[in-house]
Every structure is written in structure tokens, then in C-alpha cells.
């Protein structure tokens, strides 16, 4: 439950159902054992059904990063397959350690001026098996891990913009810095008690701003600063293995159920709603993308279906806890159409966003955030959007979108400029010709 209203409504009810008589009873009967009195009280609030759902949701979101690796990996040339997959894979490693040491604390520690989290959770101090301030019916560790998986996939998404040419060592440094000074603040603003969620009260159920706009804006900065691939525009660079891309899309879709429905932080009706609209939006977006592609280029493609699915999933992300199924058809279908054109714009504007992060995540995320302000219905998530008579919701969404774009674009651009001047961003020309697999990793994908 990423939204305070909801948190209260469901959280409250569940708490009562589970704990009223029972926890009182339990308190008397149980011996306190190895746990402090305080911890006991907390533990007794943990709901096993909620915990089961968030455990598996966390695993599902983790799987999205390898899914993304395949999705992207299939689209590059075969000489770059390992380099591309590695950029996602190593994000799993680097971001995890950063998150445990300081990232979680910056994002979800006690709020400082609505801007950043405090140091209370540094090294996971004060985070434990009991429940914490977020997701009050699940272990705090679990909430931390669930959030971690979001932090991992976000920078991995960006890598699509500079595929086939980025230096591995610089990428590692980029990862650490970007998570720390772009992702953590933004996550805090939206979900950790910062100004976007707590004051502006903009809605972002599962990461339209935090994950998709932030990665899309960063991708735009990266595509502009890193520059085009050698031969881009002159040489055909068709995807080397679309089966990988389709498999990746399927794993993303599968994982997205954890991403969106898990964001209810409970195993309840809200999770079911998020689950359903997520699936529907993805379906509608496939049809939207294929239709427009069919008309425009005379053939509906498999890559189009995969891209449409992802576009729909992106767009429904911020809305999943706030809109109903019929709205999700509209949100998805429009996402499919919009992202198709956004992706095609790239060749007009002349930057090489190699795997279309801007067109899919930037544009799709933006549409989703705005659509939340349009289609949100109080009967679903407690808040109404413009179409249900509440224009303010839309205003809040628009402000939040602009803020996220500006912040992520600017800070990413600065990071990359500095890295460019120090470590350099690109592999050598020779390395690019040879491919990242051999030049950066000394391996080949296929022998």
C-alpha cells in the first residue's frame, strides 16, 4: 500500500481483525522468550497471509531484473549479449549492498524536512524481523527487501539507453552514485514521507515516478551524453535473438504481478485489484501497439507485442491501486499507441536511445502518472481523479511528473558529465567493434 489513505483504511481493518482479541490473549499466554517485550508486540501484528504474499512478491520483483536482462539482451547484437546481461546482473549485486549499507536509510529513514531519510536504518540498524513503520503487518526486513528489488531494477532499466557501448567499470561507479543521489531521494519523496507523497499527496502506487519516469529521464540524459553507437543509422542493428526478448517480456510480466499487486503490502482486495488491472493494461497495450503498427507498417510484430506488453505494464504501475478494470483497458491501450509513436520519434530527434527506454519507460510512466490523476476512483483506492470529479488529483500528478523528470534528468546528466571527464563513459572504438563481450568481459555468449 503505497498511499497513506489506503494504508490506513486496510491496515486498520486488518489490524483489528487479527489483533484485537487475539493479540491481547497472546500477550498473556506467551512467554517472552528471546525477544524484548517491544518486539513481541510488533511480531504479534505480523499477518502470515500478508507476509506470504510479500515474500513471494519480493522474489517476483527480483526475477524482473534477470527478465529485463533477457528482454534487453535479445535486442542487441550477439557480440554484446553478455555485456548487456551483465549490466542488469551486476545491478543485483551492487545495489543490494548499497541499499543495505545506506540506501534504505536514505529512502525510508525518519524523514528530514520532507527531503531525505535520516540515518536510523544505516546498515539496517533498527530494521528486523518485527514489523516496521511501513507495511505494518509484515516483517520490516521484508519491506526493506521488497523496496530493494525496486531499487535494483530502476538503474538496470536505464542501461537500455546506452547499450552496446558503455564501459563496465564506469557503469559500476555510475550505479553507486545514481542510486544514492537520484533513486534514494526520489523514493523518499514519494514513499518515504517526503514532499511528493506526504505533502503534495501525488499518487504513485508502485513506481510510475520512482521507477519509470526516473529511469526514462535518466535514459534521455544518458542517450544524449553517451552518444550514438558506431554506425548507428548506417548499419542495420537488428535484434539478435527475439526469443530471448519475448522470454524476458514474459518474466517481466510475471514479476510485475509482485511489483504492482505486492505494492498493496497485503494480501487483500487491493492486491487483487492491482493484479487484475496490471494484467488487463498489459493485454490492452499489446493490442494497441499491434494495431497501430499493423496500420503503420503493415505487419504486427512479435517485438511489438513484447514492447506493448511492457508499455502497458509501465503505464498501469502508478495507477494499479487506484483504478478499476475498465479504466485499465483505456490506460493500457493508450499506452500501447503512445509508446509506439514515442519510440518512432527517436529517429526524428537524433539520439540513440538504443533500446527505447525514453519511449517506453519515460513516456509510458508519464502517461501512467497522468492517467492516475484522470481515472482514479475513490471506490478503488479512496481517491478520485479528474474523471471522477477531482481535478486537484490531476494537478498533483502533473507537478510530481515534472519534478521527477527535472530532478532525474538533471542529476543524471551531471553524474554522467563528471564520469565522462574522469573515467570516461565509452569503451574504445575497437572494443565497440569487437563487442562488449570480448572487450569488457573476455568471453563470448555463444561458442
Amino acid at each position: 500500500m503505497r498511499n497513506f489513505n489506503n494504508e490506513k483504511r486496510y491496515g486498520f481493518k486488518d489490524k483489528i481483525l487479527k489483533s484485537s482479541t487475539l493479540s491481547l490473549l497472546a500477550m498473556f499466554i506467551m512467554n517472552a522468550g528471546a525477544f524484548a517485550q517491544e518486539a513481541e508486540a510488533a511480531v504479534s501484528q505480523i499477518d502470515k497471509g500478508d507476509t506470504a504474499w510479500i515474500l513471494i512478491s519480493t522474489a517476483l520483483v527480483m526475477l524482473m531484473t534477470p527478465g529485463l536482462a533477457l528482454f534487453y539482451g535479445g535486442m542487441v547484437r550477439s557480440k554484446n549479449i553478455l555485456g548487456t546481461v551483465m549490466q542488469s546482473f551486476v545491478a543485483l549485486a551492487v545495489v543490494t549492498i548499497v541499499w543495505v549499507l545506506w540506501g534504505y536509510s536514505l529512502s525510508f529513514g525518519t524523514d528530514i524536512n520532507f527531503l531525505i531519510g535520516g540515518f536510523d536504518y544505516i546498515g539496517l540498524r533498527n530494521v528486523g524481523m518485527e514489523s516496521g513503520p511501513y507495511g505494518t503487518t509484515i516483517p520490516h526486513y521484508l519491506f526493506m527487501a521488497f523496496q530493494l528489488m525496486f531499487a535494483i531494477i530502476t538503474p538496470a532499466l536505464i542501461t537500455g539507453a546506452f547499450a552496446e557501448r558503455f564501459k563496465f567499470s564506469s557503469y559500476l561507479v555510475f550505479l553507486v552514485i545514481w542510486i544514492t543521489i537520484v533513486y534514494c531521494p526520489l523514493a523518499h519523496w514519494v514513499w518515504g514521507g517526503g514532499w511528493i507523497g506526504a505533502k503534495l499527496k501525488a499518487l504513485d502506487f508502485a513506481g510510475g515516478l520512482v521507477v519509470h519516469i526516473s529511469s526514462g529521464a535518466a535514459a534521455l540524459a544518458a542517450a544524449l551524453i553517451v552518444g550514438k553507437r558506431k554506425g548507428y543509422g548506417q548499419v542495420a542493428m537488428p535484434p539478435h535473438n527475439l526469443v530471448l526478448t519475448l522470454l524476458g517480456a514474459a518474466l517481466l510480466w510475471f514479476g510485475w504481478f509482485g511489483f504492482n499487486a505486492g505494492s498493496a503490502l497485503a494480501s487483500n482486495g487491493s492486491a487483487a485489484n492491482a493484479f487484475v488491472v496490471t494484467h488487463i493494461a498489459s493485454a490492452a497495450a499489446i493490442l494497441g501497439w499491434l494495431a497501430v503498427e499493423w496500420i503503420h507498417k503493415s505487419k504486427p510484430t512479435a517485438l511489438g507485442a513484447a514492447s506493448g506488453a511492457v508499455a502497458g505494464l509501465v503505464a498501469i504501475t502508478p495507477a494499479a491501486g487506484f483504478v478499476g478494470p475498465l479504466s485499465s483497458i483505456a490506460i493500457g491501450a493508450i499506452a500501447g499507441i503512445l509508446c509506439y509513436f514515442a519510440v518512432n520519434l527517436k529517429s526524428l530527434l537524433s539520439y540513440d536511445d538504443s533500446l527505447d527506454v525514453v519511449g517506453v519507460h519515460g513516456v509510458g510512466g508519464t502517461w501512467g502518472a497522468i492517467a492516475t490523476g484522470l481515472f482514479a476512483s475513490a471506490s478503488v483506492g479512496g481517491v478520485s481523479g479528474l474523471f471522477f470529479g477531482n481535478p486537484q488529483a490531476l494537478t498533483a500528478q502533473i507537478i510530481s511528473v515534472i519534478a521527477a523528470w527535472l530532478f532525474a534528468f538533471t542529476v543524471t546528466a551531471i553524474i554522467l558529465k563528471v564520469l565522462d571527464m574522469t573515467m570516461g563513459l565509452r569503451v574504445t572504438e575497437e572494443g565497440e567493434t569487437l563487442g562488449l563481450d570480448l572487450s569488457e568481459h573476455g568471453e563470448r555468449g555463444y561458442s
Partner: protein
Amino acid sequence: MKKIEAIIKPFKINEVKAALDEIGVCGITISDVKGCGRQKGITEVYRGAEYHIPFINKIKLEIVVLDEMLEKAISAIQQSAQTENIGDGKIFVLNVEEVVRIRTGERGPDAV
């Protein structure tokens, strides 16, 4: 001895093989190649971007035959590989100076 190199459409390989079997030519080496000629390639679309792929998949046959078999082999291939559509391919004939059978070390016509 002559070497026949034939470029054919991939789906014709079974028919060509059968035609060669019939006239008793059984030593054949094939490989996947790509070609362009009058047939102008195909256009693929990825996320709205069109790529023209100038080369089309073909199969190359390499067959070394004794001089007396040459004409028979050429016409077997030509007839079985023909679809009368553009892109049917070519047959080239080159002269072979020596043939060695690796297994036995035999040389010349016996080794073919």
C-alpha cells in the same frame, strides 16, 4: 575433375539431393550462405524502424565430379532447383587439379 558450386534456395535442398542421388552422385558438401543478386533482399521492421536486409539465405552445394559426370550433374541440379522465380541461384564450374581421400590417402579420380 570438376568442382560444381551451386547456390540454391534452401527449401530446394531435399529435391536437389534426391536428383543427385538418382544419377549416382553421392559426395556432396553443403553450407549455409547468404546471397544477393537480382532478388533484392527483404525489409524487416523493428519497433517501427525498417532495416533492409540485402542478403537472403541460400544453400551452397559443393560437388566434385569426374569430367564425364559434369553435364549430368549440372542438369540434375538445374532442373531440381528451379522454381522459375527470381533468386533461384547459380551453378559455377571450376577445375580441380587433385583430389585426396583422407581415410586412405588415395589420389585422383579414384578418390572422388
